């Protein structure tokens, strides 16, 4: 049982943290600082647990739960993402003070749901874990204080979410019908029997839709702009980083079921990939709200990830894994700046960044690097991620897809440059005081810059880890 516990270590830590936060949320009056410190401490423990559990392998709960490098990689990613998001929650101005423990609680349960999700190898478990994380987010989105848009965003998120989950369930039922099992391992084992059954393939596709929703890929992306804009900045950060990573993980696991033998699936995924990239990038060009723009850009990035996934090769999967890591780092860096600049928790227009280079040079630098990284400019991690994804697609012979991807990357540069322009060139209308950047934030900035460049130039270790992870998904 001790071995089992070790296998379950990250989840256990997360659960523990959730319990602790639940306890913290009970008293009527809380000291916000203390809660935050506790949360940070606990999430650090979680990161440690994630690290400790990185190379564990095994299976739990009657084969419904599988611990392997693949899942542990993503768990570590999730733990780190949670830690990072919590680290910018010190001044939680976007959320009313008395709900802050709950806020942390839901972040934690969401993370827990995703951690379980990446390890789940049984469809129902997977589904329920997915719902657990979704529920937490449904609640986190409208927790923002102030505007009306938060609830509206929450409602839209919820309805698109439950529609997607209905579709997903419907698809699962077809898979169940065709394969007679909900265990991924069995499904994969009987691949030749079902792959040419229309019901099964459609079922798989519909199942994927739930994950495409999480990933905000076309056509399940409609929530993204609204939620990004409507939710509190920190929540948006979380949605933009952690939940994407988990979605990628599941997408890989589920797509891998078909082992690349269904041309139909490939075609549909390619179409969605192209549509996501194009639509996201084009729509992002005309945005004036920074978070909304980043939302559309996340739609485009969902397309890039899909490009890696749809190749259904090892290189493709490992590149998608790398990309999700890259995406997490760079997107977090961008949102961190958003959170810091919008210190009142308000929404941030792109034009509000004017004069940032003087108000906070370090933040401006981080933002610029993050945006260049998102645009896929070397030597940042975003480029390396894109490069790997494109390489995977090219290896599979999707020349045109790569071309479209590159053209899209160029398009995307336009709106990223607009932001950089605002931060570096535009002068604010009135005098704005310098932004105070605290020591830890400074350190965080340096760390992020270093991470973006280091991972961009030295992808070797992570890449090898990812390759090792995808070698044995089932």
């Amino acid at each position, binding site marked *: 049982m001790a071995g089992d516990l070790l296998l379950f270590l990250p989840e256990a830590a997360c659960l523990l943290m959730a319990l602790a936060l639940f306890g913290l949320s009970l008293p009527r009056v809380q000291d916000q600082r203390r809660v935050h410190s506790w949360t940070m401490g606990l999430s650090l423990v979680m990161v440690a647990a994630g690290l400790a559990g990185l190379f564990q392998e095994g299976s739990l709960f009657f084969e419904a739960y599988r611990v392997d490098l693949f899942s542990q990689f993503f768990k570590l990613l999730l733990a780190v993402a949670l830690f990072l998001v919590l680290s910018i929650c010190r001044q939680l101005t976007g959320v009313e003070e008395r709900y802050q423990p709950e806020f942390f609680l839901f972040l934690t349960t969401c993370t827990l749901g995703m951690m379980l999700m990446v390890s789940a190898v049984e469809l129902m478990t997977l589904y329920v874990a997915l719902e*657990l994380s979704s529920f*937490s987010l449904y609640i986190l989105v409208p927790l923002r204080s102030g505007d009306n848009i938060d609830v509206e965003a929450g409602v839209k998120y919820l309805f698109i979410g439950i529609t997607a989950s209905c579709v997903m369930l419907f698809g699962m039922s077809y898979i169940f019908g065709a394969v007679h099992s909900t265990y991924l391992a069995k499904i994969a084992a009987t691949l030749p029997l079902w792959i040419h059954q229309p019901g099964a393939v459609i079922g798989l596709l519909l199942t994927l839709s739930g994950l495409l929703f999480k990933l905000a890929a076309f056509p399940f992306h409609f929530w993204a702009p609204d939620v990004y804009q409507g939710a509190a900045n920190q929540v948006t950060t979380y949605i933009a980083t952690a939940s994407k990573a988990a979605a990628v993980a599941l997408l890989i696991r589920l797509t891998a079921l078909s082992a690349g033998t269904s041309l139909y699936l490939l075609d549909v995924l390619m179409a969605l990939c192209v549509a996501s990239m194009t639509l996201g990038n084009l729509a992002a060009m005309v945005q004036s709200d920074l978070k909304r723009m980043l939302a559309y850009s996340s739609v485009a990035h969902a397309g890039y990830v899909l490009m890696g996934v749809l190749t259904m090769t090892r290189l493709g999967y490992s590149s998608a894994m790398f990309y999700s890591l890259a995406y997490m780092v760079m997107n977090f860096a961008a949102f961190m700046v958003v959170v810091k600049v919008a210190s009142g928790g308000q929404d941030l227009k792109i034009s509000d960044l004017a004069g940032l280079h003087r108000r906070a040079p370090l933040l401006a630098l981080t933002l610029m690097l993050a945006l260049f990284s998102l645009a896929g400019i070397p030597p940042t991690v975003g480029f390396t991620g894109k490069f790997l994804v494109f390489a995977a697609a090219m290896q599979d012979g999707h020349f045109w897809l790569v071309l479209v991807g590159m053209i899209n990357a160029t398009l995307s540069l336009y709106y990223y440059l607009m932001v950089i322009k605002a931060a570096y060139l535009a002068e604010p209308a009135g005098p704005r005081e310098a932004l105070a950047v605290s020591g830890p934030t400074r350190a965080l900035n340096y760390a992020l810059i270093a991470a973006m460049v280091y991972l961009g130039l030295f992808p070797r270790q992570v890449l090898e880890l990812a390759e090792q992870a995808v070698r044995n998904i089932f």
Partner: protein
Amino acid sequence: MTPVMGEYIRPEAVAWAAFILVTALTFVGALIAVLPRNIIYNVFGLATCILGVAGLFIFLGSEFLAMMEILIYIGAISIAIVFAIMLSQPMHVQIPPAWRPKLYLSFAVSAVVFVAFSIIVLRTPWEVALERGQDWTVRRLGELFLTRYELLFELISLALLVAIIGAIITAAALGGGRKSEGGS
């Protein structure tokens, strides 16, 4: 039932009648749940439909599930919806008729989905499993919950917990006492 009766009303016929009844209940309920503009009819439609589905579950061999279906959907969900309706909108206010094209488009796209999926269902050679267990007892379900679906069981309780806390926070706290006259 006497044997005499049995000669007139054969079990198959009864079963057929019952099946048609539950199917009709399901469809009619579903339509009522969707079509009328008055929201309270829709809830009744949902309840009717649920009854039909519960009947279908019985036909499919699981009385337990039928019971749970009624319990959860009618007992919990429908009631909650009714409360929500009462809290949210005055029932006598008629909602203006819908924009026509939206109706047609919705119908068209749903119909296309229906046709497409029907053909897919028909084209799929659904295969029967080689070995089939026959243990339909509730006991077996309970066993599974504690063994194979242990994690699932825990998970769903966690999910429900989260949902409840969330619902409390959202419904009780959000918007209450704060500026509330916004919106268009």
